[in-house]
Each structure stands twice: as structure tokens, then as C-alpha cells.
């Protein structure tokens, strides 16, 4: 073979190198950020030993505490609302023959994915400020409505994908085996769509938890969430406390994704 490597149909020179470099570049900043959240010193570049100091200071910071509780509360409410509505919508759009108006419904549901976030944010700012003036109410409901709305497509897509992968004859078979429509839903459709519903709910939760732009525009005074609090902090000189908060926010995402990955791998 004179030292020549065997020909491989799939090889393209240089591609693997670029790919590996991309993976390294994707992870290096995140890893750095996590590492320096444990720095004993004030710097985010010079390592001065390991410490939990910044986690402690974040934990003791009242603003962070409140923002964290608010973030979780909004994300829980928004993911619950959007998942229920998205499940209903997915059932309404998939378990039947194609119908007129289907495209319109798809477009409406996916609209938050297509419109730039800043435009939605501005639109909600205008709309909600009209309502605030008219009603005098300035509670968390605005944020929950806004988050629920833009979480709908994220909850909808995995549920719809799951339902579309399900044979329609399964419900027919259930009816053939004496299941009433409710029994067929309860015993066949619901258990089969459950993985999609769970995935949808988790996506919605993560998306709501991470949102910055829309929250920044919709929130009233004193309604900071963790991301908007961080955005505010970034304007000043940053201390590793922000690294600690970021790491804490990273953990649920990574844990959920890893759980999904391991579950899928075991199943296949």
C-alpha cells in the first residue's frame, strides 16, 4: 500500500480537524466560566485557589434569591399553561385528516419562533402598558401570559412530532375493542403521547427560565428574573458571583439534557 491510507468514501480532508476545533471552541468559554465561579479571588482570569465563596455570596444576595424564586415560579406556571394548551392544540391538529385552516393554525402556533424576539418584546411592552394604564394591575400575570405564549411552540413541536409518529389505527383498534372515545384516549392516546408531553413541558420550562429579551421589556419595576438580573449586572464590572449564578442556571439544563440522552440511549 506504500503508506497510503485506504480510501474512504466518507472522508473529506480537514473536516474532522475543523469539527474538533469547533467542539473545543464551543466548550472552552463555558468551562472557563464554570471554573472561575470557584475562584477564591475577585478575578475572572487569574486563578487564586478553590472556594465556594461566590456561591455563598450569591446565595446570601437577597436580589438573587428573589429573582431565582420569581424565575422558577414564572417558568413553572408558563410551562404548565403552555403544555396543557399545546397538548390540546396538538391533539386537535394531528389526530384527524388534514383540514382547511390547518396551515393558519400552524403559522399562528409557530409565530413566536418566526418573529424576532425584540419585535415581540416591543409589541408586548406596548400592549401591556395599555392594559396597565387601563386596569392599574401590574403583577406577575403579564410575565406569565407572555412566557406561556412564546413557550407554546416549544411545547407543541415535540408533542405533535410524537403524535404524528403514532399510528392513527391505534385509536381505531381501541374502538374496535370496545373502548369508548374517552377510554381510548385515557388508555391508548395519553400513555403513548406522554413522552412527547414531558419533553414539551421540559423544553417550555427551560425556555421560560432562560428568557431575557421579552422579560426585560414586559417586567414591571421590581420584577427581575435571574437572567434580567444578570443582564443588569453585566453593565458593571463583573465579579465571579455572576459566574456562580450562571453555573447554577446551567446545571438544570445540562442535567435534563443528559437524562434525556441517557434515557434515549438505553431505549435504543
Amino acid at each position, binding site marked *: 500500500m506504500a503508506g497510503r491510507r485506504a480510501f474512504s*468514501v*466518507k*472522508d*473529506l*480532508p480537514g*473536516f*474532522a480537524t*475543523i*469539527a474538533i476545533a*469547533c*467542539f473545543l471552541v*464551543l*466548550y472552552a*468559554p*463555558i468551562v*472557563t*466560566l464554570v471554573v472561575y465561579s470557584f475562584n477564591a479571588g475577585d*478575578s475572572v*482570569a*487569574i486563578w487564586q485557589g478553590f472556594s465556594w465563596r461566590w456561591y455563598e455570596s450569591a446565595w446570601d444576595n437577597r436580589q438573587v434569591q428573589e429573582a431565582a424564586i420569581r424565575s422558577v415560579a414564572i417558568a413553572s406556571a408558563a410551562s404548565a*399553561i*403552555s403544555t396543557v*394548551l*399545546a397538548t*390540546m*392544540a396538538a391533539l*386537535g*391538529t394531528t389526530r384527524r385528516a388534514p383540514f382547511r385552516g390547518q396551515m393558519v393554525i400552524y403559522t*399562528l*402556533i409557530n409565530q*413566536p419562533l*418566526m*418573529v*424576532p*424576539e*425584540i*419585535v*415581540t418584546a*416591543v*409589541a*408586548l411592552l*406596548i*400592549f401591556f402598558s*395599555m392594559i396597565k394604564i387601563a386596569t392599574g394591575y401590574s403583577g406577575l400575570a403579564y410575565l406569565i*401570559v407572555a412566557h406561556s405564549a*412564546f413557550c*407554546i411552540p416549544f411545547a407543541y413541536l415535540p408533542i405533535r412530532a410524537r403524535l404524528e409518529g403514532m399510528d392513527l389505527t391505534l385509536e381505531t383498534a381501541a374502538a374496535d375493542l370496545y373502548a369508548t372515545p374517552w377510554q381510548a384516549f385515557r388508555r391508548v392516546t395519553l400513555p403513548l403521547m406522554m413522552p412527547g408531553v414531558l419533553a414539551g413541558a421540559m423544553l417550555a420550562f*427551560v425556555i421560560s427560565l*432562560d428568557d*431575557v429579551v421579552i422579560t426585560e421589556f414586559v417586567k414591571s419595576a421590581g420584577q427581575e428574573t435571574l*437572567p434580567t438580573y*444578570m*443582564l443588569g449586572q*453585566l453593565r458593571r464590572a463583573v465579579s465571579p458571583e455572576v459566574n456562580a449564578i450562571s453555573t447554577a442556571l446551567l446545571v438544570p*439544563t*445540562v442535567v435534563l*439534557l*443528559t437524562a434525556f*440522552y441517557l434515557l*434515549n440511549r438505553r431505549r435504543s
Partner: protein
Amino acid sequence: MSAPALALLLVGASGPLLIVAVYSFLSPAEYSGVVWELSGDGWFRVVFSRDIFDDTVKLADAHLTIFWRSAKLSLLTTLLTFAFGFPTAYFIATRPQSQRPLWLFLITIPFWTNLLIRTFAIMEVIRNEGILNSALLALGLIERPIQILYTDTAVMLGMVYVYLPLMVLPLYAAMERLDFRLVEAAYDLYATRRRVLTRVIVPLVKPGIVAGSILVFIPALGAYVTPRVLGGGKNMMLGNLIELQFGQGRHWPLGSALSITLLVIVMLALIVYVRNVSSESAER
């Protein structure tokens, strides 16, 4: 069944867009908000400015600069994410079946990681006291830190970094379906590697290329967080210009008009995409 979801979307997403369109034709109030009087001033100010003293009409240079920067940075970001994303997606798609989920998983983690955190992470790396400059200084390659943060370059680097997974995922989806017997057939018919890439692989994964480009271009054009954090006050993009109009004493109708402009550009891009995809599927 879909009605409740549609109702919420109407209140929390679509409906307010109509109000924005209406607002763009109203007059600004003195402090914030609007006065319900019809006016073209909002739209006028998108590209023109009027001198306070002699009332002469000029092009609004500040706005044009921002439009140009937005377009330039979004396109460059799209090109760069493609240049890095294509080999990455190809690499994942050509791994053995058993390894692919792991590589894909490694792409999805940054994809689902908070955009703000990723922007912050890249900021830490490129700032003057950051890892990059510290390392270069320590190695003696530079004598004083290079100012990257708060430049256009920083914004572009940041966007390439945060949007790269958005390019890789649709590209991978297209490449995973690629039938490598076609590649074999091309080699069999005397194609070189370069020809196989440009004449067979790229045309076959074109829907993925289009989807990835759209997925990167649209959020890049409307980017708000990345330019705000990495570009500082000077290097604004369209998203930041829009935000600016909704502060105290600013011009809401102008902000609305700018929002609608951005929306229209995005819709045009989407139409191009849909056309492209539907003509692709019509060929099959």
C-alpha cells in the same frame, strides 16, 4: 381543541404586533407612549432626520450606520457559522451510527444553554483582562491587551459562537439522510473529492443549508443581547436601536416603525426559505 392555545397566542404574540403596526403611524407623546394623532413622523425618521434649527431634511446617518452594521454582521455571522458548521455537521453525520448520538448531544448542550450565559462566557474570554489576552501576554506575543470587547468584531465573534449550533443541527439533519451510495457513484464516475463535495453533497443537503442559514440570519438580524453585552453602547444593532426608542422621552412610533421594518425583512427571508423548500419537495 386548538382554540385556547390560539387565543393565548393572539393575546400574547400576534395581536400586539397589530398594535405595533398602528403605533408606527401615531405621534409621539412628550415623555413616553403616543398621542392618538395620525402621523408619518415615525416612518420618516427611520431613514431621515430633520435639523432642529433650520428644518432641513437629511439622511439619518446614525440609523443608516446601524442598518449597515446589522446587515453586515448578520451576513458575516451566517457565512462564518456555515464555514465552521458544515464540516462539523458532516463530521457528526459520518461517525459510526453508535457514536452519533453522543456527538449530537455535545452540540445540543450549548444549543440549550442560556444565550445570555454563553454571551457572558465569550465576554470573559475576550475582555482585556480575560483568558485570551492574559495568555497572549504571558506568552509574550503581545505587549498590551488587544481591545476586542466593545468592537464589531466582538459582536460578530459572539454571534458566531452563540448561533453555531443553530447552523449545525439542520445541516446534520440533512446530512444524516444523505445516501452515501450516491457519493460512491460519484467517485465511481471519476469525480475528485472537491467535485464530490460541490457537485453531489452540497446540492443534496441544500435544504439543510437554507434552513441553517435562515435559522442563524433571522435571530442575528434581530439580535439584542449579544450586541448589548459585547458591543457596548457604541456598536448598536437594529435590536438595540429599537429598544432605545422605548426609553423615557424617546420616540415610540419610530421604535414601532423600526420593529415593523425588521419584521418585514424577516418575513421576506422566510418567504425565500419556504419557496426554496417547496420547490425542492416539488422536485421529488
